[in-house]
Every structure is written in structure tokens, then in C-alpha cells.
């Protein structure tokens, strides 16, 4: 059954380290990537995301576990026999060949006839808006153009899966934003499964259908952008994706899917509990800054008091730093609805910060 475009089943990767010790880059990762999906592997550098991608491409072989592409186990299949193509971070365009020759390379290797190659190369270059660049050499092109050539060179082969290793990492911010949309457009156009490696959480949220957050060789959480942002399953994911507040405390009272948490300094709040917790357990509560309010709101059950320590106005929002009675500092983000938005508090002023039970989420790990 080939219900997944790519499946990693209990994959491990160990490398010999520089001092002879064993470095485990990927630890028991299992992933299922659907056909036609835009999937991101997201994490800080050294989290194992690139190693995972390289194992799918066949540049590295798993130490344990198996990788399936459309249901076929890859085993020791070399890269040139896998139905995938890769876009490298450094583009890896062949410097001694023209753009046309670069794009034609994969088709030549497959033994496609000359006329067909010429037609498909022209088509691929048109798709990335580089028609007429066939005769140029890679170094005559800008970074963004080289990036698009690398995409055309991979997509012209009509792979079952396209692997992208931080393909936008070397571009400047403006170009990166453009290419994000361009990639999204291309993926919809060709309908090929894209697996995308990035350390940029915003990029992952913008582009992907689903995201796997990796840390220390482990896939911590897999889900849609919304899942991962709103329902992080651990402290690392909550912290890595977007901005958040962490409040450490102990469970004082447990209801069906919520619990009362006592914080140091005599503050207590109600929070949503996705996992079962027990009274007396030490836990962390995460609340996103935009879900906390200084503005009065009757529906918000939780109320904590503190003093404003700093105020940062950034146009769309105003950020308030608030220190609670227990010494914890939290950040509150209030949106500036109207042009006449006034400050809701002044530095040093005592305020009451409110948030709903659903906005507060208990993390056990």
C-alpha cells in the first residue's frame, strides 16, 4: 500500500564523531508524509532535520529503521535510483555547464531523446521564469536566479518527491519572501510532494501543510501550523514556534480537562490540560502574549496582578512587560485597533492581566 509519499519508520542515524565517539544525529524518527503535501522539517541547526532529508535522498543510509517512498522500502538504494530530486542549500549548479545543460542533466541521465529534452528544459525554465537564460553560466546569474535554476533542474525530472534543504537560506529577506510564495505556487502547479528543511519557523508556518518540529535528533511534534502553534505538546515546541510566556507551578486541583495551578507568590490560575496531570505535580503553563489582555474582558477567568516594567510600541501592537508578585516576568501583546489607540498602562503602574482557560496550556515535558 502506497498511501504515503514518504514514510520514515523508526529511523536512527549514528555517525562517528571527531574524537571517535558516536554521535546520534537522528533518534527513532517515524514520519508519514502524504502524497502532494508540502511538509516542513523544522528545527535549530544540529537537530537532525538535514540528516533526515539526506537519508530520504540516499546520500546517507539509516543506521537502523527503514525509509519507504510510495510504499517501496529504499534499503541501500543509491541516490541515482531513487524517485526523488534535491534542491541544495548551496544550489550545487554545475559551474562548467550552461543553465540549459544543468537543467538537461537529469533527463540526459535517463536517456530521454534530444528533442524531448529541449522541449522539457524550455518548459522548466519557463516555469521558473528564466526563459532565454539557457546559454548562460551559473555564475552569471544572481542568487535568486540560481535558486530557480536549481528548482527547474530538479522539477524537470518530475520526481515523486522534491527535497529542499534550506533552499532560501542564502537569499536576502525580500527575495526570500518572494521565493516562499513562488515555491508555494510551483508546488500547487506541479502537485509533487515537497519536503522542506528549514530553521526559520515563520517560513515553515507560511509555506507548509504540515510541520515536524525536530530537536536533538527527535521529532517532537508533527502537525499543521495551527496545531503546532496553538497546541504545542512540549516546552521546546511552544518556545521555538512564536513567542510565549512560561509560568512554572504545581497542580492544586484537577477538573476533567483543566486544572488549577498554583504559582509562587500566591498566584493561582486555571489552565487547559491536554495530558492527564496529578495534584502536586510540577508543571509549566504556556500562554501566548497575544492571548493575554490588560484591557478589561469579562469572559477571561484568569486574572493575575503585577507591575508594568516596560512598554514597546511596534505599530500593529504594543508589548507590555509585566512582573508578577511571584517575580515571574510575562509579556502581554495588545493589538492597536484604532489610530487613536492609547496606552493601557504606564510604566510602574499596577495592572491586572487577564486570559482565558483555553489560552493557558499545561505542559508536562
Amino acid at each position, binding site marked *: 500500500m502506497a498511501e504515503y509519499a514518504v514514510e520514515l519508520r523508526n529511523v536512527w542515524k549514528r555517525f562517528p564523531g571527531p574524537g571517535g565517539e558516536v554521535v546520534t544525529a537522528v533518534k527513532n524518527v517515524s514520519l508519514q508524509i502524504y502524497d502532494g503535501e508540502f511538509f516542513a522539517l523544522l528545527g535549530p541547526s544540529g537537530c537532525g532535520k538535514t540528516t533526515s532529508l539526506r537519508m530520504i535522498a540516499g546520500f546517507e543510509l539509516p543506521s537502523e529503521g527503514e525509509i519507504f517512498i510510495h510504499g517501496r522500502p529504499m534499503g541501500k538504494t543509491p541516490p541515482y535510483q531513487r524517485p526523488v530530486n534535491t534542491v541544495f542549500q548551496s544550489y550545487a549548479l*554545475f559551474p562548467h555547464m550552461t543553465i540549459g545543460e544543468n537543467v538537461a542533466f537529469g533527463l540526459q541521465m535517463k536517456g530521454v531523446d534530444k528533442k524531448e529534452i529541449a522541449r522539457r528544459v524550455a518548459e522548466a525554465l519557463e516555469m521558473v521564469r528564466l526563459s532565454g537564460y539557457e546559454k548562460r553560466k551559473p555564475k552569471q546569474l544572481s542568487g535568486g536566479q540560481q535558486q530557480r535554476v536549481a528548482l527547474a533542474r*530538479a522539477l524537470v525530472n518530475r520526481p515523486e518527491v522534491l527535497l529542499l534543504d534550506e533552499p532560501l537560506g542564502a537569499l536576502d529577506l525580500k527575495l526570500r519572501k518572494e521565493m516562499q510564495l513562488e515555491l508555494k505556487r510551483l508546488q500547487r502547479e506541479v502537485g509533487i510532494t515537497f519536503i522542506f528543511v528549514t530553521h526559520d519557523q515563520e517560513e515553515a508556518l507560511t509555506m507548509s501543510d504540515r510541520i515536524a518540529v525536530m530537536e536533538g535528533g527527535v521529532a517532537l511534534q508533527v502537525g499543521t501550523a495551527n496545531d503546532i502553534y496553538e497546541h504545542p505538546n512540549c516546552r521546546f515546541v511552544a518556545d521555538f514556534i512564536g513567542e510565549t510566556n512560561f509560568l512554572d507551578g504545581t497542580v492544586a486541583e484537577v477538573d476533567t480537562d483543566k486544572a488549577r495551578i498554583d504559582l509562587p507568590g500566591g498566584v493561582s490560575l486555571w489552565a487547559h490540560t491536554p495530558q492527564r496531570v496529578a495534584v502536586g505535580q510540577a508543571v509549566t503553563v504556556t500562554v501566548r502574549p497575544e492571548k493575554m489582555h490588560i484591557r478589561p474582558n469579562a469572559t477571561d477567568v484568569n486574572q493575575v496582578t503585577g507591575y508594568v516594567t516596560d512598554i514597546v510600541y511596534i505599530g500593529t501592537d504594543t508589548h507590555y512587560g509585566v512582573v508578577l508578585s511571584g517575580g515571574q516576568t510575562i509579556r502581554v501583546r495588545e493589538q492597536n485597533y484604532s489610530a487613536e489607540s492609547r496606552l493601557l498602562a504606564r510604566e510602574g503602574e499596577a495592572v491586572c492581566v487577564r486570559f482565558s482557560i483555553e489560552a493557558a496550556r499545561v505542559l508536562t515535558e
Partner: protein
Amino acid sequence: MSAKKRSPWLTLVSILVYFFLYAPIIVLIVFSFNASRTNVVFEGVVNQGPCGPFYWYCELFRNRSVMDATRNTLIIAFTSTVVSTIIGTMAALALQRYDFFGKKVSETALYFPIVTPEIVMGIGILVFFSAVFGWINTALALAPNQRLTMGLGTVIVSHIAFSIPFVTLVVRARLHGFDDRLEEAAMDLGANEFTTFRKVTLPLIAPGVLAGAMLAFTLSLDDFIITFFTTGPGATTLPIYVYGLLRRIVTPELNALSTIWVLVVLIVVAISQWFQRRE
């Protein structure tokens, strides 16, 4: 932008350096047209026989020993260049790519012959071949006409041996900073290991390989010491022949030979420069 004021001494020293480098070569070329049989004084341009001023050049081409020595030298140089370039390039790629037990040691051991005095290498190779050949000859009880002896074969083998480190050194310099991703990209696009090497790796390191081959060729062409120790009857090379002549009379024939030699080297260097510029 105004040129920085240079000390006139710098100019003088530069001129002197170039003078000492090139004066002997110019004198050598001029004397190849000498009317005198000796290389002591220039007695005017020779004009003798059908070749006129190129009398000594014609004499040279009529000289059997010179022609034999030239043939030997070229056979040795071509064979050792081709073999050492292949082995040296493979060694460079292996050292670049793989981590293996004893890599540091094998790398140092590879470059050691470059700094070892050639005379030591020469004696070593001589002793080695004598011992091995002696042992084989006795063990197989070969008849006198079947015995393994020093000759073209031993010279070629020793030239290959001393050229390999130089080729490896030059090719490794080119490999430094080589983007491994390029090879991965080729494989990713469906090229197997051999095609990847042929279509991507080799074209990219070609200038280094060519430079290594040129170095090996010129090293072999003018090697005297190691050749002297490993040569045998019928395997006289040009440097050995010239050394033999020096003990007798040095005629302008020798100058003519040297002039041709200089021209050949110039052409080879020009070709390699052209290749590198095209890159």
C-alpha cells in the same frame, strides 16, 4: 591612481635576477649556431652543408645515440606521466574524501619522498631492484639471457614512483574547496558513480590534473640522479647521454639539443597555460 614610487635598487635587482636566469639560455642558443667545434669562443655563424646555419641541428638528427636517447626519454616521460597522473589523482581523491585508519600516516608517507634527497631515493631504488631481481633470478634459476636486469622498465617504474606525490599534491590543491554537493547533485539527478566522475568531478579538477601531469612530465624529462641509478644497457636517456658527452668534447650539437629542449618545454608550458586560461 599614481604609481607608488619604487626604489631604483629594486629595478636593478630585478634586472640582474632576470639576467642571471636567462643569459645562460641565450648564450646556449647563440652558441648552437657557432662555427667553432668548441663551446669556448663564438667564431661566427656556422654555414656548412645543406642545412647552412642549422648545421649542428642536422648533425644532431643524424646522430643515432642522440635519437635513441630521445626516444627512450620520451617513452619514459609519457608512460610515467600517464600512470603517475592516474594513480596520483586517485590518491588525491581518496585522501580528500575518505577518513580511514592510518590516513595521517599514509598522507605523510606519500609526501615524504618530495623532501627526501633524490640521491637517497636513487640508491634505495637501486638496492631494492638488485635485491628483488637477484632473488627472482636465483629462485627461478633463469638463464643469463632471461635474467631480469635494469633497463627501461626499472626507469619507468621509478619515475612513476617519484612523480605520484607531486601529482597528488597538485590535484589536492585543486580539490581543496571542492563542493561535494556537486557530486551529490549529479547522483541525485541519476548519474552513477562513474558518470558523476566523468561528467562533473573530472571536468572540474581537470586544470589540477593537467598541471600535475605537466609537472610529472617535466620531472621525468630532466631527471638525472634516479635515472642514473636505475638505468641499464640500451636505456640511456638524454640527461644521461649529455652527462656522458661532458666528459669528452662538448660540441655545439649539444647546444642545438638543449635549444630544442627549451623550445619543447616552452610549447608545453604555453599549452598548459592556454588550457588553464580557458577554464
